[in-house]
């Protein structure tokens, strides 16, 4: 994860917002087709291009949150999700836990337990240590 790429200027932020809008539409259609795992994968993709812009971060979070709450089968989801997404998923789980909203926290906690089993403590460590690329 390159920290230097995180610095986004205003016009880039607009481009990211547009991309997020596209993603939202794609995710809605995937969810309608009962493909929550693909929806989550789509939501998590591209957030690697980290941004410091708060609007982009919020928009990203809304999209990921939508996909996360739609997950019913956590084990199945984690089996089909590539391990490269584990670290970024962990970051969003902690973001969800920090919202304090009951349903979000329950879902995030449920996923956190399984993700830790799968990915190990290293995943949590990498979330804790990465103060540069925050979600």
């Amino acid at each position, binding site marked *: 994860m390159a920290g230097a790429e995180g610095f986004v200027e205003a016009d880039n932020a607009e481009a990211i917002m547009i991309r997020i809008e596209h993603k939202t539409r794609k995710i809605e259609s995937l969810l309608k087709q009962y493909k929550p795992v693909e929806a989550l994968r789509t939501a998590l993709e591209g957030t690697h291009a980290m941004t410091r812009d708060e609007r982009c971060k919020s928009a990203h979070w809304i999209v990921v949150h939508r996909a996360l709450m739609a997950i019913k089968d956590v084990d199945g989801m984690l089996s089909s999700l590539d391990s490269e997404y584990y670290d970024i998923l962990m970051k969003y789980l902690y973001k969800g836990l920090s919202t304090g909203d009951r349903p979000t926290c*329950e879902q995030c906690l449920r996923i956190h337990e399984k993700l830790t089993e799968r990915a190990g403590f*290293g995943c949590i*460590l990498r979330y804790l*240590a*990465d103060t540069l690329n925050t979600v």
Partner: protein
Amino acid sequence: MAAISVHQFAPCITCHAWSPDKSMVAFCPNNNEVHIYKLFEDKWEKVHTLQKHDQIISGIDWSTRTNRIVTASQDRNSYVWNLEGSEWVPTLVILRLNRAALCVQWSPKENKFAVGSGAKTVCVCYYEQENNWWVSKLIRKRHDSSVTSVSWHPNNILLATTSTDGKCRVFSTLIKGVDSKESNGSTSSYSKFGELIIQLDLSLSWAFGVKWSPSGNTLAYVGHNSMIYFVDDVGPSPLAQNVACRDLPLRDVLFVSERMVIGVGFDCTPMVFAADDRGIWSFVRYLGEKKETSSGSKYGSQFSEAFGKFYGQSKHGMNNDSVESSKIRGGVHENCINCIMPLGECGTLIRRFSTSGLDGRVVIWDLEGQQDLLDYM
């Protein structure tokens, strides 16, 4: 079982080093002394106590050819100990530091040693014959934070350092009069003392435990974010690989061959990393047991309690697997391993190494019985 000998020397050990013939071990039992123990048949007995430092000794290195011990301490000093008769006689090395010394290592030719410190400097010390003392040259620039680990390249000139600013740097330590004696054509390419050859900014958090491979072509160091970094072709265009560790961060590494690295740290068991034919590094397995444990039994009793509380908040109940065994993986070390030293060598392959940790144990490991690993070497 890869661990062939375990001995509890003290409640806690900060660092250790072996004598040239590997019959004696010197370590700091988390105080201002160095204890040297010798193995008599089956029992370890204390043969020397080196008392000179005022604070905890953070680094010890014992040179193999010249039989000198160098110690670095949090009291900002370093001593070089020479064996005269049956006594170890200390010589103070004025490092000119205003913060703790954190790590020390003899250079391959044993005519220099490097000390990393909390003063964001690295001291490279060499012996001045005329004045009969050790002179310290400081590399003051470049580091933004404490230097946690130093490692010498086989050519006796390049020095790699890691720091809590997350970066790994390689410096030239060419000293006129000490290094230029050799008519080695390549030394002229390292122009000045303290020149920064390369700076690697791969880790997002503290970096520890840097080591060079036996040929000096590859560097390995660890980040506190549970990552280990391998850098090939250290030079103008290095090839870096980030390998994520599954669990807790590592603290130190050791190259047992050109393509295999042992990492030790907070998981209390050595981890083996190896490079395949294409040069891609990956985690192989833990050394404490033959294969990966099932995810349930890895949680010790303390963890399972904490996780139980955490997950108990969710209406959907706890993960029952986590209340299983209370044994921490491996069981040989019970606390963080923070030091790994090579023991037996055949050519450039290291078959035996020792680890010491915060649990006060020194464990000797032998790779002889690990056939799957020997294939990598």
